[in-house]
């Protein structure tokens, strides 16, 4: 194939990738969009295949990787999506580092250096950027994967001088980058890669579980920039376009998530809620009383209501209660109760996590409502069932100026006539804050595992 036809094919693939993302504006067009993405990728891969000499080995590598990917995609449980996404980010990061190393090993093969000469100077900068972004994405995503899958503690890990160490490492990495720019050789390249790998670990360790929606989005963004960086190195427009699409997508998601928590991006990145929050909660002093009831009581209240809104949170995913909750709403709907679900943007561990779980359980699409659309309706609702959510329904975010979460948009559950909260214990949520909602006169706590409680409610209603 001539260079021109290769680039025209790449252009077609790039346009198809844009259409892929555009399709996601509605569930109906999204499936066609995904198809466009697959076609685009097939065009890109086949075009590139025509340029290589090692067709057999490359096809074998694709077959092995493809088989692994296909099996994982088929088997993965929807509750485990955040882990899967994090794991896949790490693969892109590692692939970017490997490609950068290969490019540096043999720049002539990529046409980015003349035979016998070393890398062009502008390519050195691009190679440096692609490598360190890839390396940080790689190890950072592994840590995020560990935290999301419970293999590592979800608690923020912090130590004194952490930020200074990171700053120092950042400067050192930049220093070796400059050394690499001045005389491209393996030593500075490998040292700066090693530092970037360490930075990836150090940057994600201090970030706690409930901030994961931001972290996952951010790493999503990085994986895109890493691909774009490699595109710069190889002078490949399609890599640049696809990488930038992914990069801006992740950046926008990070922004949306931060806004939904009313927190500055850097505040999240520099490591979670501090000790002050828990100290304040402990200093409250007054013994507050709450009301608790059984699943039967909850069933009675909901069975006699006209309208019920269910507020799912991370606890729903942990208990895998999504199918049970759909059963419950079916039973309620049959009794003439209007059932809807209210979704907070940061509910769960990744953007849209709750929507996918409810979709898996075949909850009708029109029953699932985003925060902004449903917030006015809580005041006219008989019963709200909060299941596995805490901070996103804490009225302190509205009423208490001294609260660390003051200003965070919340679901106005406290306005409903009756509130039921399914929770394992009175323990505080991620922010370490007590939740006044639990102590209101109209609130009844139902203690127990979310799935078990919901199943008991179904039995009691039916």
């Amino acid at each position, binding site marked *: 194939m001539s260079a021109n036809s290769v680039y025209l094919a790449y252009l077609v693939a790039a346009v198809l*990738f844009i259409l892929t*993302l*555009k399709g*996601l504006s*509605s*569930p109906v067009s999204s*499936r066609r969009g*995904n198809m466009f993405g697959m076609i685009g990728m097939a065009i*890109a*891969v086949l075009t*590139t295949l025509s340029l*290589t*000499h*090692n067709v057999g080995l*490359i096809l074998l590598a694709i077959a092995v*990787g493809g088989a*692994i990917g*296909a099996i994982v*995609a*088929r088997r*993965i449980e*929807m509750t485990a999506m955040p882990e899967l*996404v994090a794991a*896949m980010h790490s*693969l*892109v990061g*590692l*692939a970017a580092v*490997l*490609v950068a*190393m*290969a*490019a540096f*090993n*043999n720049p002539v*093969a*990529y046409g980015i250096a003349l035979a016998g000469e070393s890398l062009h100077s*502008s390519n050195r900068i691009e190679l440096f950027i692609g490598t360190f972004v890839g390396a940080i994405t790689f190890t950072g995503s592994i840590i995020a994967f560990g935290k999301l899958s419970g293999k590592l503690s979800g608690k923020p890990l912090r130590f004194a001088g952490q930020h200074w160490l990171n700053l120092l490492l950042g400067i050192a990495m930049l220093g070796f980058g400059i050394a690499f720019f001045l005389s491209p050789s393996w030593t500075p390249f490998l040292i700066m890669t090693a530092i970037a790998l360490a930075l990836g670990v150090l940057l994600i360790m201090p970030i706690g579980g409930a901030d994961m929606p931001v972290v996952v*989005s951010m790493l999503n963004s990085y*994986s895109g920039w890493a*691909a774009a960086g490699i595109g710069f190195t*190889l002078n*490949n*427009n*399609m*890599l*640049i376009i696809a990488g930038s*699409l*992914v*990069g*801006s*997508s992740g950046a*926008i*998601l990070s922004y949306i998530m931060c806004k939904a928590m009313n927190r500055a991006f850097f505040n999240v990145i520099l490591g979670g809620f501090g000790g002050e929050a828990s100290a304040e909660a402990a200093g409250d002093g007054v013994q507050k009383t709450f009301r608790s009831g059984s699943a039967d009581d909850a069933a009675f209240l909901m069975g006699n209501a006209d309208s019920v809104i269910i507020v799912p949170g991370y606890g729903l995913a942990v208990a895998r209660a999504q199918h049970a909750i759909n059963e419950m709403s079916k039973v309620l709907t049959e009794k003439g109760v209007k059932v809807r679900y209210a979704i907070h*943007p940061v509910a769960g561990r990744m953007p*849209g*996590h709750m*929507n*996918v779980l409810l979709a898996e359980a075949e*909850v009708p699409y029109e029953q699932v409502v985003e925060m902004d659309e449903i917030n006015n309706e809580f005041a006219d609702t008989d019963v709200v069932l909060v299941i596995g959510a805490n901070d996103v329904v804490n009225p302190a975010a509205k009423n208490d100026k001294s609260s660390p979460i003051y200003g965070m948009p919340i679901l106005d559950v406290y306005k409903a006539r009756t509130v039921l909260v399914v929770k394992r214990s009175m323990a505080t949520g991620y922010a370490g804050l007590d939740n006044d909602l639990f102590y209101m006169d109209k609130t009844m706590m139902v203690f127990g595992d979310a799935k078990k409680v919901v199943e008991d409610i179904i039995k009691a209603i039916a």
Partner: protein
Amino acid sequence: MTGAVDPFVMNLTVFVLAIFIGYHVVWNVTPALHTPLMAVTNAVSGIIIVGAMLAAKPQEMDVGTILGLIAVTLAAINVFGGFLVTQRMLAMFKKKGK
């Protein structure tokens, strides 16, 4: 103006324009589909497979080609895994949407 344009400048042009497109397209994505968006962008960032294939291109095997082949395998996991899991998720949204 004289002389050829540096490839870096051309790359930068494409880069900046692509970010603008990404920005506008992604803001239109419905929040309910944010998880499928992350999964499909995972697959799209698997485009690094093209770079990996080019690394594995030379006929004579050396460190670079082996690194390239490993990278092809990793990226293929992303491409296949990403698109297929997205398809699976979107099919779930179909059932309820009718």
